[in-house]
């Protein structure tokens, strides 16, 4: 595949800064081609659909139209689960409902926005890496093994659910699974990590209620962290800025408000993969994570 439009979304430009940094560094080191999605808008995250679902569909369609109409690209790559989910959902809605497509196009004309024609596909960063390089391609580029560090790969909700909007998943060998996703396991495994058997790969972190119902979110995050620790993991690898911040925030909240201390480190999979490619921790924003893993990674001989 050729060049893709990179859609960082608001999260990677804000609290997910280290994810943005490590994604850019990784993509460059791997020699893949992407171009920033021009003047994009927010995907509406999980919130605007509750005001009205068409808002979510439109916001995503607008971004896809920018990629095709203004940049001549037919694929948008998003590292954020929320952005990815919303783009996929808009793709699905407009492809399966003529009325939805008509409404989207009608609104675009009224707003003098580029008009979406259904000609753009969306990829999560994980899918893009697997499609472009696969595990073999990664193996060839590894300069420093992850030294068998034990990782629980956490994918969260929006990368896999609801499965209807991801027609390319669950297509047999080689494809991603919506029940038991494995792309992150595959990539980090190829980089020398040991993936532990982690049953809560797609459990919910309570991201929708991080602030509005913190007790629930803290409990859900604790379930994930404790399951990871029980499985023997030293690190939880994430592939979503919202899940990542949720894990970090509620790990602290559990500690300060409920006195429950946990030890597992939380790192973006791009940071881990970047280390295996020999990139410096600074370039990957490892110091900018709230979950402080620097000492641990040194101990393990990974940095």
């Amino acid at each position, binding site marked *: 595949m050729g060049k893709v439009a990179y859609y960082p979304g608001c999260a990677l430009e*804000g609290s997910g800064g280290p994810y943005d940094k490590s994604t850019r560094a990784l993509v460059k080191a791997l020699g893949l081609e992407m171009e920033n999605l021009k003047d994009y*808008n927010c995907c*509406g995250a999980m919130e*605007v*659909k509750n005001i009205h679902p068409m808002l979510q569909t439109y916001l995503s369609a607008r971004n896809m139209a920018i990629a095709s109409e203004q940049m001549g690209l037919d694929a948008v790559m998003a590292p954020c689960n929320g952005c990815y989910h919303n783009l996929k959902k808009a793709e699905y809605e407009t492809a399966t409902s003529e009325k939805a497509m008509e409404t989207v196009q009608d609104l675009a004309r009224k707003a003098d926005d580029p008009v979406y024609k259904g000609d753009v596909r969306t990829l999560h960063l994980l899918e893009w890496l697997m499609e472009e390089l696969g595990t073999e391609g990664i193996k060839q580029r590894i300069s420093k093994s992850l030294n068998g560090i034990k990782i629980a790969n956490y994918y969260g909700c929006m990368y896999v*659910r609801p499965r209807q909007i991801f027609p390319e998943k669950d297509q047999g060998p080689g494809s991603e699974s919506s029940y038991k996703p494995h792309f992150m396991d595959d990539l980090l495994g190829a980089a020398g990590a040991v993936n532990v058997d982690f049953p809560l790969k797609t459990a919910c972190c309570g991201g929708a209620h991080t602030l*509005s119902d913190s007790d*629930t979110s803290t409990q859900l995050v604790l379930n994930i962290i404790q399951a990871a620790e029980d499985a023997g993991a030293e690190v939880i690898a994430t592939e979503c800025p919202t899940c990542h911040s949720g894990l970090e925030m509620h790990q602290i909240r559990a500690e*300060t408000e409920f006195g429950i201390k946990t030890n597992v480190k939380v790192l973006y999979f791009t940071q881990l993969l970047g280390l295996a490619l020999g990139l410096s921790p600074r370039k990957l924003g490892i110091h900018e994570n709230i979950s402080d893993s620097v000492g641990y990674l040194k101990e393990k001989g990974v940095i």
Partner: protein
Amino acid sequence: MAIHEKSLIEPERILSEEKLVVDGVDVSGSWNTMITPRYLRDYDDDFEAVIQKYAGGENVHRCWQCGSCTNSCTMYAQNVQFNPRYWIYLTRLGLKDEIIKDKDIIWQCVSCNKCTNICPKDVRPEGVMKALAHWMEEQSITEKTPSTHFDETFWEEIYHTGRIEDASVMMGFFKKTNQPLMQDWLVVFGKRMMKYLPIAQMAKMGLNFIAKPRTKSWGKTGEVLKAYVQEQKEAAHG
């Protein structure tokens, strides 16, 4: 004899007697619990249609009560009172009063979509949860929930600039819900965030907060979307 789903029966309707003789037969012991009958006259035949008009509630009529949604539900695992299947059942029967009893927890649905993923009838229970929560707010049965405040803060930012900025959404939300900004755990969080953050990154975040990031080509998009939503809501709810 255990009564399953006892939690769904009002305590005052459960009668337990030490010694109980019914029609001359001594049923003390395991059969000593009775439930007084109840006559329902307060159902609303049109209620299902009302919920169908809310975004997300469209397919509620398809439910065949298999229970898969509740079985897979993240919130049910936290609290067995959180029961999407049951609320969908009540919606279809028009038993509003029964639903209202759970008004304080329905909004807690975390939108994990496990229910929508598994439902064999494409009911989309996650949407029904939102529809019920919104109906209760609009009927003033509940106040606006924290979740709705958050959604609105979020949409307002997008409406104006096309984008959002984490810190300002967070502060806007705290303000709307009258919460203190300096919550202990957030202070610890902030401190850990600052610990290693490069000055340039910190400056950028501060700057973002003051001069909010904006989509330059946003133009009248916000206006057009707002007008559309208004129109749709009026068409659905008058």
